[in-house]
């Protein structure tokens, strides 16, 4: 596969948002916080269900509409319409990480509406991944039990379980290869000058949510090789991106008309696939539990400090914040984030609330805000 072919394949995988290959049970994963290696080691293929292809984002399943409050997380709402519309009927199971902001509501609504008989056809097995992001021994013991439960659930759908040690070692080799490839991608997007845009990095990274780790690693390596040979680097500001889960390339395009998103710390950014992917096989769960950038990371993990440290290390000139219409969590961090970044002379530009697919008017306003902030800083 040439570099250009790899890039095209990554772009296609991102756009399709569907698992490739059906030689094993496909297990949906709603968002971040699940060590994918545990699913792979059980002989299953993990595939994201939180992000929707463009032609399904606005799908409405009438049977469930009346149960969904307007303040339900957009990703949860889109998912539920798709679930009850049959989009995931090819999946053996869907795993919902409790600590993903939208996942618990999605799980609870899905299980309850299924219990009430709203499913038109058979649905995947719905599994709650109850990992707690914290450091105590009690939390570690609790999380170990959750990993055991996950193994039992995967065994029930035809996986091998509990995941044997050798299988996990083999899978971790592929995850480590992916981690190395993603690190190379990060170097290209945060380099001086950047050779890859933040939008490209987001798409190529998240293509991996539908690919086996080893295959993703190989495609990324080829794509990075191609990108490294680009003659001209990108100009403009070094931009950090924070906030709630964003996977709209048009928003990236609007922001990157001012430079490059060199540090992408929202849930579809460089926080995926999570620290478990770089861990040793027997530390996978503990590594995931210690992720300070998880949405519900406990205070002892110092989440805000970790966020700021990454932004500073990336030498961001400016940080852009954006959040979904029903955000009830990130907004609490905004003033503190602004103050901490200010101590490093990094301005924060607040783009405010946005739809899952913002319209041209929102994009235009976002660009105006960013332009005004950069001009004020320059003055």
């Amino acid at each position: 596969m040439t570099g250009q072919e790899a890039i095209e394949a990554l772009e296609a995988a991102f756009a399709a948002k569907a698992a490739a290959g059906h030689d094993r049970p496909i297990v949906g994963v709603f968002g971040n916080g699940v060590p994918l290696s545990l699913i792979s080691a059980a002989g299953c293929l993990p595939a994201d269900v939180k992000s929707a292809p463009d032609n399904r984002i606005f799908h409405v399943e009438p049977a469930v509409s009346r149960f969904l409050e307007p303040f339900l997380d957009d990703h949860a709402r889109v998912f539920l319409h798709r679930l009850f519309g049959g989009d995931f009927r090819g999946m053996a199971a869907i795993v919902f990480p409790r600590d993903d902001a939208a996942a618990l509501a999605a799980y609870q609504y899905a299980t309850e509406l299924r219990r009430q008989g709203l499913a038109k056809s058979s649905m995947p097995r719905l599994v709650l991944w109850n990992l707690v992001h914290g450091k105590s021994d009690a939390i570690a013991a609790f999380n170990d039990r959750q990993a055991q439960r996950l193994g039992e659930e995967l065994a029930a759908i035809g996986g091998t379980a509990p995941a044997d040690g050798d299988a996990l070692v083999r899978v971790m080799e592929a995850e480590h290869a992916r981690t190395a490839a993603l690190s190379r991608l990060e170097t290209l997007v945060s380099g001086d000058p950047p050779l890859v845009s933040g939008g490209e990095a987001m798409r190529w990274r998240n293509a991996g949510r539908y690919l086996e780790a080893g295959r993703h690693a190989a495609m990324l390596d080829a794509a990075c090789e191609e990108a490294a040979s680009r003659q001209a680097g990108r100009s403009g500001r070094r931009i950090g991106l924070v906030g709630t889960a964003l996977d709209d390339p048009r928003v990236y395009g609007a922001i990157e008309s001012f430079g490059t998103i060199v540090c992408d710390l929202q849930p579809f950014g460089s926080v995926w696939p999570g620290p478990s992917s770089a861990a040793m096989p027997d530390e996978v769960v503990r590594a995931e539990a210690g992720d300070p950038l998880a949405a519900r990371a406990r205070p002892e993990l110092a989440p805000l400090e970790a966020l700021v440290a990454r932004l500073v290390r990336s030498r961001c000139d400016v940080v852009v914040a954006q959040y979904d219409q029903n955000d009830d969590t990130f907004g609490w961090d905004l003033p503190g984030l602004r103050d901490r970044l200010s101590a490093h002379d990094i301005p924060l530009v607040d783009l405010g609330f946005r739809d899952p697919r913002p319209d041209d008017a929102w994009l235009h306003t976002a660009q105006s805000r960013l332009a005004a902030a950069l001009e004020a800083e320059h003055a």
Partner: protein
Amino acid sequence: MPEEMTASRTATEYQREWVKGLRAQITGGAQYAFANADTPHEIFHHMGLPVVTNQWWSAIISAKQLSEHYFDHMESLGFHGRLARYSSLPLIAELEGDRERQPWGGLPRPAVFCARQSADDHQKIFSLWAERTGAPLFLFSAPAVPDPAPDWWALARNDWEHLYGTDRLDLMVAEMRDLIALLEGLTGRRFDEESFRAYLDRVNAQEEIFAEASELLAAAPRSPIRINEQIPNVMIPQWHRGSDWALAHARAFRDEVAQRVRSGTAACENERIRMMWIGAGLWFDTSFYTAFEESHGAVFAWSMYLPFAADGYIRHDHGDPLRALAARVVSMNEQLHQPPWVNSWLVEQAKKHRIDVALMLIPRHDRFSGLGSLIAKEALEQAGVRVIEVWSDMVDRREWDRDAMYERVASELDRLPRRSD
């Protein structure tokens, strides 16, 4: 209209004196804990550490008509306008900084903050507060229940191990022991497990009395008391649960309810429509609960506080009181807001209390409290209860239009078929 209950007067007087004493204590430098409602207050009480409950303080601020000012100020502090209000109002008052404006001249720094991760924003709110004051934050984890049994109330008193899950209870108990160790260090007092067992027995006894009161109200031909009286007669003892006063008051309240039922006393003589108020109190306008009595004979016969005192609190300890307390707390809030628990329980309660109409408080910007509302609405309607959505916050009155809400409810009540007497 019947006279105010004796129990209501004594509860209010007790609370007034207690609040005076608490204020003197903590403004005089005594240690206290500032905690969310869904945390194990029993541990603080048993260690002799007074507790100021976040939601109680929020209601106090709201009742003093201060919420408008603080929520307007919230955005000037850089917090966007769609963050939760009920749990954050005290924090915003603290951050606003004008202590003269606050009730009591503001709260002094607590010895400890305590919250549970039941909602995603609780740790953010309490972390900000801990950072502001330098007081330590103790945060309980809150993993969810993978397979919640819809009829949780039938299992919760005895079969809580199965209902809530051994792994979740193990985690909760371990964290409670960590809290105990922290409090022993802060207070210099030792946690006595034997007397704790006796204390929890008294809490259970209190809640069993409330269960009896709830059954009396459900069976009464007409509601003998309003929820305006029901709520303080439950919640004031709940803040002091297990104390001699609280037990005595619960008995007095139950007995007075029983006497009113025997004598045929009705809160609303021409009761024709029985309503339930779903959600936390409308703390800035509690007179709304009586707004439909004269015009429609519509009385609020139910609010969650009394029946939840029974179903949410009674936990037989099976020889392990700390674990039983964990079973009380581990899903306390979740049972009131998450499907299938909330919808199943509300239907069971509506049937028991012969409810015709439900007013359902849905706070647009308090997602944890609002999720599951439409599932619950559908379930109630399937059970024959007409549901009126009240899109309002419990403490933020800025979008509350009482006249418009009255008209809306009244027009729905007008459409109900008239019950033959």
